[in-house]
């Protein structure tokens, strides 16, 4: 994991915020992180729906997420390029890579220049999500076949949880798909 920005003096004051988000609203996440930094809370860690911040002086940071599950070759090339261009890596988790840049030092910086690049990023996330959900559904179906009695629990809890998970997953994939279409049609 890359260390947090060395130019920040550690104050030792940290906070953890839990936030559920989906691929299609990652831009709201990065806008929110920028807002946090303006209040002096700078991201030091990102995980599954969990952000950790450290208190420092307010900064005008621009945050951007990229989605890359696997790299053609060495991911070091990718990180070198981002760092050379002034972007500090903050976290990488389940294919999401979080970066930030000081917008006062690099006023016109953008991680992606063209809407098509953003659509391609969502496309990578979409493909991965579909694979994961198919795999999880297949595992659940196998579970039904092998341990049918588990699913006959009177509470209906297990089928309920699996059904709920599938419904939320499919809905989020559908929204992401429309987001990609929207970007591609307007660019």
């Amino acid at each position, binding site marked *: 994991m890359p260390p947090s920005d060395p130019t920040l003096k550690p104050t030792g004051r940290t906070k953890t915020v839990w936030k559920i988000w989906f691929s299609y609203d990652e831009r709201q996440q990065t806008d929110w992180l920028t807002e946090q930094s303006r209040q002096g809370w700078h991201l030091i860690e990102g995980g599954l729906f969990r952000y950790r911040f450290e208190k420092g002086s307010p900064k005008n940071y621009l945050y951007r997420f990229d989605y890359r599950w696997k790299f*053609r070759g060495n991911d*070091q090339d*990718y990180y070198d*390029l*981002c760092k050379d261009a002034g972007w500090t890596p903050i976290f990488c988790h389940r294919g999401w890579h979080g970066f930030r840049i000081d917008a006062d030092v690099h006023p016109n910086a*953008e*991680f992606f*220049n*063209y809407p098509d690049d953003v659509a391609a990023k969502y496309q990578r996330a979409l493909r991965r999500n579909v694979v994961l959900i198919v795999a999880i559904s297949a595992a659940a179906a196998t579970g039904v076949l092998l341990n049918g009695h588990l699913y006959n629990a009177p509470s209906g809890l297990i089928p309920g949880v699996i059904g709920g998970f599938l419904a939320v997953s499919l809905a989020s994939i559908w929204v992401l798909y429309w987001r990609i279409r929207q970007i591609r049609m307007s660019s």
Partner: protein
Amino acid sequence: MTDTPLTEQSFYILVALAQPLHGYGVIKKVEAMSNARVVLGPGTLYGALNALKKKGWIQPADAPQGDDRRKGYVITPEGQTVLKADLARMEELVAHGRAVIETWERADAAE
């Protein structure tokens, strides 16, 4: 031919890679050529370099900046062919555009 027209960033990257450069070298060179109009973000450049490499228009090369492990690229003969074809296309556009503007200017001058 579906390879052209090249996007602006692909065209500039191919021109920049007339000499071997690493990623950040490409960003700086394109920025200089376009008077800072095109400042490629790392996400855009990384994707574009991979796409150009996959098409065989650029290939890995030792970047001359003396930087050790930074990976460099250079244009291939295929890349040069594509660049020339796209340049010919743009010259045609420029010639027609310029010709029509000149007729307007002559008409304005005659008034």
